[in-house]
Every structure is written in C-alpha cells, then in structure tokens.
C-alpha cells in the first residue's frame, strides 16, 4: 500500500540555521507512528513542512502521494492537526473555536463533538482567553478528533493534560485508528508512545537516527544483567559483547549487546549460578541512548550543525 507520509532527504534552513538535514520518514496507512527526538531536533519543523506551512529547501515530501506545498488545500481536507501550544481567539468561546476550525474543514461529526467534549470534560462556553493551558489543548484536540479524517498529525498534543485526560486521549486515538485513521504523533511522553505507537522514528539534529518497532529498537540497545555466580569478572569482561562490568560483594553487574547473551551463557555453563536477571532496556534507557549524543554537544539547539550529523550518529551506536 502507498505510504501516507513519505519524506526523503528533507532539508530545511532558517537563514543560516539548518533545522532539517536529510530527514527520512515513512508512515504506512493505519499505523500510529511515534516521532521522537530531543528538543530542537526538528520534529515540529518536519510537521510544518508536511502541513505546507513551510517550504522545503531540498528533498521530497509526499503526503497521500501529493505535494504538501502545492496541493495543501486538497490534502488538508483529509487531515487534522493539533499543535503543542494552542493559542485560541481570545473572544471566541471554546465551542466557537471548535466550530470555526471544523467549519473551515467542511463540518464536524456533531455527535462525536458532543461526546468528546464530555469525555475531555471541557466547558465549551468559556472564552478563549480564560482557558488554562490544558483546556486550550483540549479545544484543539476535540476539533481534530471530531472530524472524519484519514490522518491526524499531533505535535505534542498532550502537553499540559493531566494523567486522567492523558488516558482519555489514548482511548480516543485508538478509536480513531479503529476508524481507519493514520496517526503521526510527536511526543516526549514515553508511556504514551509505548501505549500507542506501532512504529517510531527517532530524529536528532534534523536527521533520522532510528526507525522501527519499539521491540526492534530495544534490540539495538543493551540489556543489563545482574549475576551472582562462581565466575571471575575477567572471564566475562574479555567478551566483546559485555560492557561496563562492575563487581560488588558477590554480584556482577554489566550490560550485554543484543545477541551477546549466548556468549555469556556459554561461559557460565557448568558453573554454580545462584541468580541471574537480565532486563531489557527501559524506554528511558532506550531514548537516553539515542538522544544522548546530542545532549553531550553544546549549543545543540540547531547550532553549528552540518556534516557532523553522520559521525555523531555512528558515535551513538558505539556508545
């Protein structure tokens, strides 16, 4: 099936700042695609290019097979967007803002609109300027989710939502997927990503560094092992797959590359093993691993970016 979003080697400059530097992203129909990366990585910029709000400098971008800049209006009939920072019209009520946005799209599903207002516990009669941050966010969410579209583009849609509302959000996204929608979700909330996303793309410094299912990504990261066995530390630390080994009392702690566990186990064969726990990387570890290299560099917010991206990407894998 033709991908809903297909981005290849996308480049976007803001003056001398290179915000996107050869980014690739493919989103298949029906998928909830997590779009992750550290602050300033270029997620919002990519989304704005997809929405035809920004003009790409190089590369190809296809949305439903069309050009997001030239065919913006036709493409937008099939999508809805929620930004991470919603500004409302100060004098329009939340309900009026929802209807204005829906009206521009040619109408909303009225039943679902009412239902969503209820579930998100949003009072649509208050004026835009009197809403709290989370409630502004809900206004945009209701407007987007109440429209019958094929694609939802969500840029940190739940920033400011409380945990209860976060759960409501996750439910509504699953329902949208059940209706056949595709979703591109940029988020810093890992639990949300884990709960919703079938695939994720991690970007850094304007380029994609990893893409795949969460379990595929996990495999790229080491598991941590705690071992209590009759074995000398040196016997394990000589193995290529074993890293950062420390010993305390009777326990050994180390991390093992994916696929390296067999080598560890063959060393242990025939020894007394009192306990062995191997933990796959947590989401946090996974992201720290992939985000890490960018944080190490000073002025990461788009500064001094360029040919270095490729080398840092490799460095991240070695780390």
């Amino acid at each position, binding site marked *: 099936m033709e991908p809903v979003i297909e981005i290849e080697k996308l480049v976007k400059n*803001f*003056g001398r700042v290179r915000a996107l530097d050869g980014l690739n992203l493919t989103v298949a129909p029906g998928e909830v695609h997590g779009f992750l990366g550290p602050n300033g990585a270029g997620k919002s910029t990519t989304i*704005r290019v997809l*929405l*035809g*709000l*920004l*003009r790409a400098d190089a590369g190809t971008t296809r949305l439903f097979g069309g050009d997001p800049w030239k065919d*913006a*209006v*036709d493409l*937008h*009939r099939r*999508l*809805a*967007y929620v*930004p991470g*920072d*919603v*500004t*409302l*019209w100060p*004098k*329009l009520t939340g309900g009026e803002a929802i209807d*204005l*946005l829906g*009206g*521009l*799209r*040619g109408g909303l599903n009225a039943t679902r609109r009412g239902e969503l207002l209820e579930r998100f516990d949003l009072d649509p009669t208050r004026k835009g*300027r*009197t809403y709290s941050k989370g409630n502004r966010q809900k206004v*945009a969410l209701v407007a987007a989710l109440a429209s019958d579209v094929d694609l939802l*583009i969500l840029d940190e849609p739940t920033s400011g939502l409380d945990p209860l509302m976060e759960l409501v959000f996750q439910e509504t996204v699953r329902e949208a997927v059940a209706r056949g929608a595709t979703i591109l979700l940029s988020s810093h909330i890992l639990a949300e990503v884990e709960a919703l996303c079938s695939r994720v793309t991690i970007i850094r410094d304007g380029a994609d560094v990893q893409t795949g299912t969460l379990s595929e990504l996990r495999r790229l990261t080491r598991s941590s092992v705690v071992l209590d066995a009759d074995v000398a530390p040196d016997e394990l630390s000589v193995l290529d797959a074993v890293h950062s080994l420390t010993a305390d009392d009777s326990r050994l702690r180390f991390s093992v590359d994916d696929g390296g566990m067999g080598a560890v186990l063959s060393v242990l064969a025939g020894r007394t093993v009192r306990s062995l726990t191997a933990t796959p990387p947590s989401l946090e570890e996974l992201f720290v691993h992939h985000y890490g290299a960018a944080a190490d560099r000073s002025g990461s917010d788009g500064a001094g970016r360029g040919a270095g991206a490729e080398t840092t990407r490799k460095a991240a894998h070695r780390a």
Partner: protein
Amino acid sequence: MSTAFAGTGRLAVSMLRADRVRVPVWVLVMVAFVAYAAGGIPAVMGEEGLQARAEVMKEPAGAMMAGPGYGIEDYSIEILMANEMLGMFAVMVAIMSLLLVVRHTRAEEEAGRTELVRAAPVGRYAQLTAALIVLVAANAAVALGMGAALVGTGMEPVLDAWVFGAGLGAVGLVFGAAAALTVQLSSNARAASGMAGALVGAAYVLRAVGDAQAPGGSVLSWLSPIGWVQQMRIFAGLRLEPAWLAAGAVVVLVSAAYALAARRDVGAGLLPERRGRANATPAGRTLLGLTARLERPRLVWWAVGLFVFGALTGSLAGPMSEVMREQPQLLAVLGVDPGDDDAMANLVSEAMGMFLMFFAMAVAVYAAAAARGLLGDETACRSELALSAVMPRAWWLGAPLLVSLLGSTALLVVSGVGLGAGASAAIGPAAVGDFALAALAYAPLLACWAAAAMLLYGAGRGSAVLWVALIAAFVIGMYGRLLDVPQAVQDAEPFSMVDAMALVGGDGDWTPLWVAGIVAAVLSAAAMIAFRRRDLAA
C-alpha cells in the same frame, strides 16, 4: 490556483464578526465630528469669520496644517471642510485601515492561530484576501457614512459631498494595502504596523511641505496619498483624476503583497531575524537597562521622524516672514517695523513657536504608549516570570516610566532642534537653542501623559480614555476657536497652557509647569499603588 483562496469566505465572516463593534465606532466618531463641524462652524463664524480664516490658511503655515487651499478665495463651509478637515480625516481613516489589516493578518500569525487555521483546508491567500474584504467593507462604511453626513448637513454640490467620503475610503484602501505589504515583510505585528504608520506619517509630511511650498501644492503633495484626495478639488471644481493614482497604488501594493504571501513560510517575515547574544550585557541584566534597550529602536525612529518634520516646518519660516512683510497693516497693528530685522525675526520665531505645541502633542502619543510594552509582557506571561523573580512591583512600572520620560524629553529636544535648524536660515542660528529649550517646557506635561498611562495600566484598565483625551486636546488646540468650543474648555486644554516661547524669552508663567510636575508625581505614585493591589492577568 483557485484553491489558494479556499476558506476566504468563512475567514472574512469571522473577521467581520470580530470587528462588529470596533469599526462602526471609528466610523461613527468621524461621522459625528463631521456632522457637528458642518453644522456648527457656519453658525459660529459667519461670513466674515470664514474669510478671516481663509487669510490664515493662505499662508504657508496654514497650508501646512490644512491643505492646498483650492477655492480659498471664496471660503465657504464646504471649502473649509475640504481644505482643513479632509487631511485630518484621511490620517484617521489610514490608521484605522492599517490597524485593521495588521490585526487580521500578521497579529493572528504571530499569535500562532494562523498555523491552526492553515492546517485546515484554507488556501495560501485566504487570510490576506479575507482581511482585504473586511478592509473594503470598513472603507465603504467610511465612504457612505461621511458622504451621507455631508449631504445630510446640506453641503453642495451633492456629488462632491459623496466624493469627499469616497476619497477618504480610497485613502483607507491605499494604507490598508500598504499594511498588507508590510505584514509580509516583518514577522512582528508591531513592526508591521510601525512601518505602515511611518508611511502615513511620511505621506502627511510630504503633503504638508508640498502644500506650504505653493498654493495648490507642489510636486511633493502629489507624492502623498493624502495629497491625492486633497488634490481632487472637492467643492472647488471637482476633478477625479487623482483617484487613478490611488487605484494604481492599491493595485501595485496588493499585487506585491500577494506575490510575497505566495512564497513565504507561515510565521516568517522576509526581513531576516538576527541571532542575539547568548548572555545579557551588563545593562541587559537590570530592568532599567533592558527596558531602555528594547525601547531604543522605537525612540530612534520617532527621533528621525520628528527631526525631519521639524526641520521641514522650520524651513517655512522664510516664506512666512515674506508673507508678513507683504501685510503692512498687520505689522502696524502688531507694532513691528518691517525694516527692523530683529523685531521681524522675533515675530517669526514666535509664530514658529506655535508649532512646538503640535510637536509636543505628537510626542504625547509616544508618552501615552509608555505602558504598551508592559501590557504585552503581561499578556505573554513575561511579567509573571519576572515578578516571580526578585522584583519589587513598583519598580516594574518605575523603570519603563523613567525610560519613557527620558525618551519623551529627548524627543522634545530633537523636535526643537529640528525646528530651529530649519528656521535658522530665516531667524539666525540662535533659534536652534531657543526652540530646543522652549520645547523642554512641555516635558512636565508629557510626564503627566506617561504617568496617566501607567496609572491606567496599574489599575488594569485599557488606555482608550487616554487616547480620547489626547485626540480631544488635539482637536481643541487645533479647531477649538473654529468650532466655538466654550472658552473654559479651551482654557482647560493642557497643551495651550504652556507658553513655551515666552518662558524662553524670560517672561512666561511657570505655574503650569510646576502643577504638571506635581500631577505627574501624584499619578505615578497612584499607578504604583494600584499595581501593587491588583492581580496579574494570566
């Protein structure tokens, strides 16, 4: 291509809805003023008064304040309206129009709402087009309202009365179109309205100087859109040709705006944004230093504008003294011997000093905007951030107030120096210092405007009252005698209380200055107290 306009209708409807009070108020105020002036002036002035007025308006200084003077030989109320009022209304309509366009385009974009709207199936040109539709609607209302007011008060010929209104609408369209262009250039709504406002100022100065140079205006008058409508000779042998200039300007400006809008990113301007420094300079770490730095660009633009206008006004001193020499009876009444150069210079310098009051009024616009930055900070929650750091609330108002006072004082001096420099050819080099000193006499009064702005902000009120007061002071100062405003009200008009030139001459009354100073201090203190007591808006 047609999809580029998708959504225009809906956007236009919501913009019209947002403006359903604001625009009618603008129009009604202007219509009411026209109706009052048209009805009141003839009754007050009578035939002889009108002719006396015409004599004043024939002089370069009169032409500068009013217009090119078509039909002035036979001054009637119709001709007075076209000669003296048209230019002022043109400025009002221009400002209304440029604010309207910026409000619906760049301000929306800067706030981030355009992004939300454009993610819906809304074309690239939709927002601009909708704003232009609202612009046309507003100016149609101006045209019809003003035309109807003139016809209703019995002005003849009726066709000219309608053209009066239509001409004002045309000026509005030109400056609205100019704003449509400036909003493409800057990513900042304030800068965009500033640029368009500077164009209005430039247009007024061009026609002022042009009209002063020769009866019927010089080529400079024809460079100004405000000049075009005055050149239509309304009520004095109507000619419609200048309207083509306005139409051409609108077409060019709007085309340029569309061409730029098609190419640019949402949220971006075409003027580049520079990167700033990573750390604040030592001055930028104090509130005072920071306020001063943020104020600097605005101050510089004001200073340049005032100096140029001052110098141009001052250069009229030469023609003015010639006109006076040609009126021996007048000089005899004043007891000045036309051969006595010193006495003549004094006379001219006194006449020029009258202009200082208008410059002081212009600077009052600057002073009254003293709290504008604060208000923006508060809505953007920067105040919350700063006041949660260690920052006494009083100083939060005090620093900008101080910067505003110093800024207004500097602007007064600049206007005086400009006026003096322009006039020095006719009066002598001492004029520069004299006018600069005389201008300073308005400083306490301007402190009152700035402090009043702070008080309104401190109390959490809008500043509309202040602008109304400023416009009232301007109208009374300029047209008070013409409109037969009661003498008590005229006397209460603060700007005319200050007798700046006399103070420099050494025989003026200092009382108004002291009083103004005390009032300013009281208002400032009240502002700080009020601000300490109220909630910050979210």
